[in-house]
């Protein structure tokens, strides 16, 4: 029994709404839901319908099993199978599979069932047949219009790619000085051709992105990067701390890898580093590579510094920028070191910028660190402006410890009098006493402004040690901040815990241990309780320095005592 009805449909009419098979059930869901032949809405449906049309008995067989089908249907199915099988073979070997008689019978049967002979070889499946698009969607789920659109785009892309390849070959020929065989002239790539190629590439990029979501950033499109094959990085399994970053960054890094491999130093590499730095200014390798390019190409250092200023202001907390600047200055210095005017001019410029950036971020560690280095490098010790600018910063914020710290270096590391190699905490006999007095006075004036501000206290103490003066030389000043110590809760007045701390040291220095102990005890008990453990330790140290001669066991015990406390 041949498949019923519908047999009138012309075998080739696969594009038209298929009237499909009349088998009561099929595995195809679309024909199951609608007894009417349904209009395919997606590419997958269309293909599935085509597939089924060429295999009219397949659905029934799958459901019931071959043996349960009527005899005619069985024969129809077998013939279909054989037909599809032989269709896959090369024409020559077909005859060896089936004899003329068998072939004839098959064709007779197929003719009778109206099977469509040129069917799809494989059953279309979602995802595998057409693949997925850049969003992970099955292309098979596209509507027919959309699918056609995609098809047209792919053709357009291929056409562009062919033209682009021609262009690239011409560029290569031009480079090697090829002569065109027909015209006898050297091949020259014209400006117009380059412009056309640029347009072509942007079109290609747009199409690629549209079709495949391929990352084709600025560089892949650019004619300038023509000859570079980017090296994208691959990551094995088990990767930790992957970071979400823009495709542009990934692209730029793959080009960086390529040029670093060949150790290329060129203007385009310089631009590449700028491009990456704009996205990630904290990549130390990129900065080092930039420096290498600057030096190799002999780029003007002041120009680079000017560019760097902008980057620094936009990235206040960046560390690499300052290392780069450091390298630039190291490189630049020998060219101006013999010219005092140029040196002074450069120092002035640098200070101008440092003042500007420190006004944005007054305690920026990297900036201050660079500044103290610069003072030594350019010999800015005697530069009055440097000290003035620091004083201005301290006037603006008396608690800016970075500024205090810079001041100490500026005053006490001046090679004019400072002994080379003296540690910061060491006494230096060469430091002029009037300087020590001036600095002590300076710190004291600032203490009055905010007695609980530790910076000037630390500074004053540091100056005294450096100048080799006893701490007791400031005893009167310190005592101004402490009144009636130990004379009762109400009477006692401490305007600064740092004064009490220093006073304890002064008394200890003068071997007035009881007084020292009182200061420390009051700090622990009342004025600075959060450091109670520390003040207690200092009290223990007082008694230990007396028993210093026999450190052994007693010390151990004291240590244990502290640990227990």
């Amino acid at each position, binding site marked *: 029994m041949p498949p019923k009805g519908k047999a009138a449909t012309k075998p080739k009419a696969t594009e038209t709404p298929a009237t499909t098979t009349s088998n009561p059930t099929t595995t195809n869901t679309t024909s199951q839901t609608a007894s009417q032949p349904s209009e395919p809405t997606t590419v997958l449906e269309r293909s599935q319908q085509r597939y089924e049309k060429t295999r009219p008995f397949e659905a029934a067989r799958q459901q019931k099993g071959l043996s349960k089908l009527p005899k005619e249907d069985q024969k129809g199915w077998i013939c279909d199978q054989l037909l599809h099988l032989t269709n896959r073979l090369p024409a020559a070997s077909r005859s060896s599979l089936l004899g003329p008689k068998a072939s004839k019978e098959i064709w007779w049967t197929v003719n009778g069932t109206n099977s469509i002979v040129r069917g799809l070889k494989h059953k279309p499946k979602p995802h595998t047949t057409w693949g997925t698009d850049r969003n992970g969607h099955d292309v098979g789920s596209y509507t027919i219009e959309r699918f056609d659109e995609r098809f047209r785009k792919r053709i357009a892309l291929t056409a562009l790619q062919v033209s682009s390849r021609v262009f690239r070959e011409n560029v290569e020929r031009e480079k090697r000085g090829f002569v065109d065989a027909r015209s006898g002239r050297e091949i020259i790539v014209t400006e117009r051709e380059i412009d056309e190629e640029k347009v072509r590439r942007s079109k290609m990029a747009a199409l690629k992105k549209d079709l495949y979501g391929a990352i084709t950033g600025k560089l892949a499109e650019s004619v300038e990067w023509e000859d570079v094959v980017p*090296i994208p*990085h*691959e*990551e*094995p*399994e*088990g990767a*930790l*701390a992957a*970071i*979400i*970053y823009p495709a542009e*960054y990934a692209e730029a890094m793959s080009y960086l*890898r390529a040029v670093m491999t060949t*150790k290329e*130093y060129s203007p385009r590499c310089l631009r590449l580093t700028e491009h990456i730095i704009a996205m*990630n200014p*904290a990549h*130390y*390798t990129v900065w*080092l590579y930039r420096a*290498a390019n600057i*030096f*190799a190409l002999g780029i003007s250092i002041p120009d680079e510094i000017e560019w760097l200023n902008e980057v620094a202001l936009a990235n206040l907390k960046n*560390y690499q920028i300052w*290392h780069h600047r450091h*390298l630039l200055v190291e490189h630049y210095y020998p060219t101006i070191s013999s010219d005092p005017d140029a040196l002074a001019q450069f120092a002035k410029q640098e200070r101008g910028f440092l003042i500007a950036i420190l006004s944005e971020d007054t305690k920026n*560690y990297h900036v*201050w*660190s660079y500044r103290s280095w610069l003072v030594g490098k350019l010999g800015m010790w005697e530069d009055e402006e440097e000290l003035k600018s620091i004083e201005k910063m301290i006037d603006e*914020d008396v*608690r800016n*410890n*970075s500024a205090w*710290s810079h001041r100490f270096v500026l005053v006490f590391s001046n090679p004019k009098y400072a002994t080379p190699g003296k*540690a910061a*905490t060491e006494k230096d006999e060469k430091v002029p006493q009037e300087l020590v007095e001036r600095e002590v006075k300076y710190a004291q004036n600032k203490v009055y402004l905010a*007695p*609980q501000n*530790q*910076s000037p206290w*630390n*500074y004053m*103490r540091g100056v005294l040690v450096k100048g080799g003066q006893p701490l007791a030389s400031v005893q009167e000043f310190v005592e101004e901040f402490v009144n009636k110590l130990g004379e009762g809760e109400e009477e006692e*007045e401490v*305007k*600064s815990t740092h004064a009490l701390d220093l006073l304890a040291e002064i008394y200890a220095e003068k071997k007035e241990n009881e007084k020292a102990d009182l200061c420390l005890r009051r700090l622990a008990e009342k004025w600075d309780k*959060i*450091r*109670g*453990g*520390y003040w*207690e330790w200092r009290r223990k*140290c007082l008694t*230990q*320095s007396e028993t210093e001669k026999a*450190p052994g066991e007693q010390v151990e015990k*004291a*240590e244990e005592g502290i640990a227990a*406390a």
Partner: protein
Amino acid sequence: MENDNKAQVEEPEQEWPYLDVLRHLRYWKMCIRAPLPHVYLSNESNRLALAYFIVNSVTLLTPPPSERTPQTPEPLISREDKRAMRKWVLHHQHPTGGFCGTSSLVFPLHSYDTYNSNTKTSDEPDHAGLANITSTLFALQLLALLADEEDEAAGENVFEGVDRVGTLRFLKSLQREDGSFGEALSDLPGHGRFIAGGYDMRYCYIATAIRWILRGDVEEGSPGWVEDFDTEALARYILNSQTYDRGFAGNSQDEAHAGYAYCAIAALTLLDRPLTSTSSSSSSSVPHKSPLLHSSIRDLPGLIHWLASRPFVYLEPPPPSADQDPDTYIYQEDDLDDPNFLLPPTPADLLCLLSQTAEKKGHDKIHVAFNGRTNKVADTCYFWWVGGALANLGRLDSLVDREAARRFLLEKMQHRIGGFGKSPGSPPDLYHSFFGLAILGLMGDEREGGKVRGFDAGLAVPRETVGVIERARRKLIDSEKGGKGVVDGGKELDTVEMGLELRSGGERPKWLGACGY
């Protein structure tokens, strides 16, 4: 929020703030499972650092197999994950030693042009600048942290595949003439091969840690011996970086900084740390009291003073209406720009303020925060840097008000979604979330019931991991020379003499006695 309720039910009347382990684990789980947000791009060149924060934190929060109970959640990182992650870490190894910080700096092998694939060696380190000192330490720590704890034998092999000799040579090549270390090598046209990186105490610390992890006790002439870097020059560089106010900086011309103080102290400690821990020392955060550290620092009491000055009483910023109520809040005007460091003008003002707050709240529990420099703001990581520095000096327990500091960390810095922020109210990040746990592990707290593993103040990994490193080093060296090494003997007094010489002050300082030498 369901967790909130659960926690309250479990510990209804706790008087102390507690660490919400589950919540922290949830935060770290997120960091493992999903890629990190774009803000981390600035760390792209050093992803191993981020990986170290993640794996170290997870390890801190995961009880060792022997302490697991049926209630213990499944480890966040499975044994299979660990294997894959170890491979990933090893993939960063540079063909001539050292590790690169990110896979975007790992090149296909054929592009290392001096690399000989037959001998698997390279005559001359090429692609200078790709391997990095920081990444090298993080890689080694990660390999040890990723040891399969359920398989002792596997633990010994965690350094399998590490180019020990190459890495130690790479390390030596990063030392500058003045004894300090840079971070990477770089070829600069006109300057030749040059040691890049700032004058940064971090690299000095890292150098000592890599040396301790890999160098071992191989004798000169034996296979696997590599010339040591100049430890004395390094120690001298470090010691010269003490500043006028007695803290430590990247060098003596810079401002004292707690991070650098930690690095300086921990580096000196690691220089004479015994290669293996004794059974008693391995249960302590400070497994070794460093004779070198105690004898060489020019002004040790001064350093302790500077470190002890880092904690401060954290005051809540006043509500916006406070300016109408000048009696209640006594702040300096500028302070309000920087509400994380409010400093009343006099000590009496502070006491007055505290007693008022205590009255309002009905208790006088204060919060103690840490800053990294004089007059700077509170920051989670400085609790670790200062705490770690003091721990290496053996003084964490006696000098810090642990109760108030913990309270600050857990009440002000712990975030609702888990992890710790940089400052009160700020969202968590990997760096601060890790250091928050690190300091808790360092301080230990029996009331927490071992929620956080004990932490090593010198090597910045859990104590069990130090054991892994010791065994793995032994194994790696044995596999190189096929023999057994000699156990190093303690030469404390020699070290003290060396330290005193480094101080370049002839006389024996008073505190040395106080330190037990």
